[in-house]
């Protein structure tokens, strides 16, 4: 098939797709499918009729869904779901551990005398902790493997409440009030939908233990930012580790930067380097399924947007 690659051309990925027998074309009007690696504003709208499906290079396509570019009855879409499960899980446990061991507090202090406070306040993952994973999908399965070794108890929360491999308990999100008061660590991995927006808010923080730590590597608006600032400042919870924020970029003068119990990484749980390395194979596999008249492995449900 002929494919366009927009808005940024990634030469290594294009070479890998061409090696599988497809042909790169500059003009989207000449292509059979489009590989798209930008935000809604960069999308060719209207999409030419010759494009039979669009392959996004990112796992989360909620912004494209929200913008109406992914819509029921519209063109078929594939995303990169599952492609970065291992790397995102790695980043998740990295910031979770760095938060529990107070790396931000130590860096901000920049001196050895912070030792006594750190020793008192830090938490250990091996210390009979319970980790709740909110939005437990494929990243969670990887994360659970990494967490298991530390002897933690794992509670998985999903929309349906289906049983998640490796979790000690699985609950539906509708029953999540049973979970807020019991877990020590909350990892938010849910897709962003109208139901999940601001799901972690003041009411939820109030039900958590004062020692609770919240980790968000999914989408910033899953957590209500002002409520989080308040919960951290008041000691309602012990800490947060965020790779995503709302707003994003987080302004330089935002109070979260100064809160020593709030660790922030600048949306680097998955990196462009990793994405570019892995995109070629993703495109080739989905294209093969498309040509065979099958559902693509990473096909997006046009109703739900994920």
């Amino acid at each position, binding site marked *: 098939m002929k494919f366009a690659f927009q808005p940024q051309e990634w030469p290594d990925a294009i070479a890998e797709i061409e090696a599988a027998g497809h042909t790169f074309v500059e003009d989207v009007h000449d292509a059979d499918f489009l590989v798209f690696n930008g935000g809604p504003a960069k999308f060719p709208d209207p999409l030419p009729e010759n494009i039979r499906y669009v392959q996004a290079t990112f796992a989360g396509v909620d912004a494209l869904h929200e913008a109406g570019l992914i819509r029921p009855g519209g063109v078929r879409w594939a995303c990169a779901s599952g492609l970065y499960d*291992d*790397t995102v899980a*790695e*980043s998740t*446990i*990295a*910031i979770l*551990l*760095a938060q*529990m*061991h107070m*790396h*931000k507090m*130590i*860096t*901000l202090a*920049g*001196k*050895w*005398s*912070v*030792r006594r406070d*750190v*020793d*008192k306040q*830090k938490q*250990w*993952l*091996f210390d009979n902790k319970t980790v709740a994973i909110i939005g437990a999908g494929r990243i969670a399965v*990887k994360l659970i*493997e*990494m967490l*298991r*070794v*530390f002897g933690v108890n794992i509670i998985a929360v999903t929309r349906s409440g289906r049983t998640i491999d490796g979790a000690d308990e699985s609950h539906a999100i509708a029953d999540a009030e049973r979970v807020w008061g019991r877990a020590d660590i909350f990892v938010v991995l849910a897709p962003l939908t109208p139901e999940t927006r601001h799901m972690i808010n003041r009411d939820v923080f109030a039900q958590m233990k004062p020692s609770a730590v919240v980790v968000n590597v999914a989408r910033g608006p899953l957590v209500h930012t002002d409520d989080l600032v308040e919960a951290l400042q008041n000691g309602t919870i012990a800490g947060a580790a965020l790779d995503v924020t709302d707003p*994003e*970029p*987080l302004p*330089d003068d935002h109070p979260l*930067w*100064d809160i020593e119990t709030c*660790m*922030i*990484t*600048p*949306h*680097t749980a998955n*990196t*462009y*380097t*990793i994405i570019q390395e892995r995109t070629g194979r993703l495109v080739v596999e989905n294209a093969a399924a498309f040509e065979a008249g099958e559902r693509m492995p990473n096909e997006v449900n046009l109703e739900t947007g994920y």
Partner: protein
Amino acid sequence: MYPGVWPGVVAEVEAAGHEAVGLEEAEFLIYTGGPLPDPLPESVGFVQFVFSGIDRLLDADVIRPGVRWANAAGVYGRPVAEIAMTLLLSQLHHVKAATLAASFSARGPIDAAQGWLHDDRTVAIIGAGGIAEALIPMLRPFGVKVIAVNRSGRPVDGADETFAQADADHVWSEADAFVLAAPLTDETAGMVDARVLTRMKRSAVVVNVGRGELIVTDDLVDALRDGEIAGAAMDVTDPEPLPDHHPLWRLPNCTITPHIAATGRVAQRMIAPQIIANAAAFEAGERMPTEVDVTLGY
């Protein structure tokens, strides 16, 4: 128990059938560090130190001939391994650099510099003993290759390869990450110096949870500044405490924690079972499980 008395530990040891008494009547001494009477009362059959590293006790002549010693080798394997894992991941994922930048504008450089355990990385554990046993299972889910290096070259469970220290020179240029967990001895002091740092990959990360003196600090500062290696992450430093004005504090590619892996707080919760096991072996006339070989220094 001397000179510090930890009530929780005393209660656990008493529950195993021993009795807490004054130093003059003691058959063994649980020692928390600091000055010791010289000579020790003759009744004392062995001294149980509550931490693992005895290098400073040897230097200060606290350990003297005539009495047997046991330490806490391996007792803090899990906490120290958790600290090592945290330091390694925190450095690879640039938590310190992001914290110091305190701005989303750091995204580009951090994205480009980010290191990963995925995919196909090699982690070398230098001084592979009790900490390595706890650390290797933590590394496994990341699909890394693990090289264990120890003094004797005795195979370490779960490691893909094990080498004796004397045969391990090639490891410095092979591995992507190094976890130093060796005791400090004449042989290990300064083992990571300019020569070794130059041989490492430029993407290498060095984690130290052993003793600060395993690394030549000034050589490390140069290597981190010049980009000889990508990063370092240390729970121990030389000098220790690290002075407030030391350049390592401000290097964004050097994660530091102030020796929090096995603190008194951790020791109080974890040491009692080892004391009880050592006392049982001592009473049975056997070698204690964590008996110290004073000539080897660990």
